[in-house]
């Protein structure tokens, strides 16, 4: 700051490098920035450390003051065994979550890529009205329609079924919007060339448009997977029976029992979170791309 004010107000002949250099912070400022960033990172990461640390402590160590971050007797595996004994069927919960996540993601991949392609490339009567209608649904908070949604599922006879967990989640406005944006970026000539070669629209979509949209598809997939994996309120309302219970409800039930020890709860949370953390670390780029794309205006 001081550096830039000290300089003369006008120096039109400045070389670009000089301008860039003046924009830089002084070494002291840089250290301050690093300090703030590291402090923030510790706060953001502390709950993860504490989760892992508590998940690996034996019950006797969990309530000891002063607390330690590194367990004296590491008992991760023992806690996993105990968790499985305490919960009704933790593996089943995980499996149900996986089924719901895969079902919704594949469903959206099909319905939304078809629809996005239709909206992006075809002229038909009512196109803008339909698209506006879809976007309008984005405005409606899910809680506001929670009761009628439940009633609809109930009248379809879908309570406590995988149909309820998967089918309504196989349609999406967000994915439609995201994929349409991506498809619009693809040069029209490539698709036209395929059409001239005799490909029908489905073939064009499959052989030209989709392969060219892999980054957008990956961004869509990670965001959809993440949202489905972590879904709680809707499954709680429509599918809270043992056979269809998802893992978020599974760990919340453990949490509701006052006598469940915290080390087991932390182990449950860790197991439920781990797949998403791994997915994120592997596919970070697409997560961040997906989030940035969702913020692009229009």
């Amino acid at each position: 700051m001081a550096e830039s004010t000290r300089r003369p107000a006008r120096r039109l002949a400045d070389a670009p490098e000089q301008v860039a250099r003046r924009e830089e912070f002084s070494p002291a400022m840089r250290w301050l920035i690093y300090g703030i960033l590291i402090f923030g990172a510790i706060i953001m990461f502390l709950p993860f450390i504490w989760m892992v640390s508590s998940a690996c402590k034996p019950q006797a160590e969990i309530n000891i003051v002063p607390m330690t971050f590194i367990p004296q007797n590491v008992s991760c595996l023992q806690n996993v065994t105990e968790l499985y004994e305490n919960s009704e069927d933790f593996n089943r919960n995980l499996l149900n979550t996986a089924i719901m996540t895969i079902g919704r993601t594949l469903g959206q991949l099909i319905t939304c890529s078809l629809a996005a392609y239709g909206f992006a490339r075809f002229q038909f009567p009512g196109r803008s009205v339909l698209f506006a209608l879809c976007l309008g649904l984005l405005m409606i908070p899910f809680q506001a329609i929670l009761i009628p949604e439940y009633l609809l599922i109930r009248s379809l006879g879908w309570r406590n079924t995988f149909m309820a967990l998967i089918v309504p989640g196989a349609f999406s406005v967000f994915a439609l919007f995201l994929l349409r944006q991506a498809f619009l970026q693809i040069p029209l000539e490539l698709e036209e060339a395929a059409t001239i070669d005799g490909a029908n629209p489905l073939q064009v979509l499959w052989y030209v448009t989709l392969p060219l949209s892999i980054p957008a598809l990956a961004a869509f997939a990670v965001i959809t997977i993440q949202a489905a994996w972590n879904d709680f309120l809707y499954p709680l309302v429509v599918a809270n029976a043992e056979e269809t219970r998802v893992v978020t409800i599974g760990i919340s039930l453990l949490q509701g029992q006052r006598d469940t020890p915290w080390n087991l709860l932390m182990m449950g949370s860790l197991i439920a979170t781990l797949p998403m953390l791994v997915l994120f670390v592997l596919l970070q780029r697409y997560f961040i791309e997906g989030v940035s794309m969702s913020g692009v205006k229009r």
Partner: protein
Amino acid sequence: MATQTDLQSTWSPKYLLGRTPLSRRRALWGLALVAPNTLGLLFFFGIPVVLSFVTAFHEWNGIKPPIFNGLENFQTLLNDPKFWQALGNTLKLVLITVPIGTLLSLSIAILLNQRLHGRSFFRTLYFLPVVTSTVAASIVWAWIFQAHYGLLNNLLAGFGLLDLNWLTRPDLVLIPIAVVTIWQRVGFYMILFLAGLQNVPRSLYEAALIDGATRWQRFRYITVPMLSPTTFLIVVLSVIGSFQIFDQVFIMTARTAAGGVGGSATTLSYYLYQKGFVGGEFGYASAIGLAMFAMMLAVTIFQLRLQRRWVYYESTDG
């Protein structure tokens, strides 16, 4: 004669889809492609929207046939102290989480937008909470905020602070809920802000530098206005998000008193859930849902009107 037949044929149903056989065929393809998703959305989300206007005007326990009761549900709502309490709690959470979440994510984004070592490392760390489930995050934070043995109280004890019952004290319980919400949200908005910062043309900064603008002036007169569309989006999104806080309340108060001692942590969505799925008052719960929707719509429209005063849109087509 010829023009007359042309006119007639234009209006015949055959030409509704297009003038040439090719365009008609493409229109049919288009309709067929958008049909599955559009019909699915209309069925699973459109029908409930319409239905909510029906159920909100009925008394219904979900078992016996519904009885039409006009505006009674809404009258009850206005005289229901628990509804007002839930509304108050929700608004408090909005007022805590939105400014803090927005300012924190903006500050982090600005710091990370500098040329620093380990930028992507920090970005990863800050984003990590976004991918965790709110349920797991709330459990972990409930453990951190636990009285006596919680991590936070033990850290605070080092500063000579008393042992606080964060989750059972009505005057404190919203703090842990706000903390989880902000913790999970900051990384997401940070990415949006970073994307916004990348879009600010460098030439503006260069011009300002040549004119001798200080760092603060550059921030105040270039970054802030150029970033205002992003800020606006984030404020709208986070108001909507905070209005719907549910998981955090459900999880963090499950062990002590569901919904907080004396309803001190009950939010609108949590109250709706309790009325509908614990109390079985479907009609009344639908009315709460409609009220929530109306309020969120009103706030969003208000923000849209307000944006003319502070949001700067570049007049280029983007």
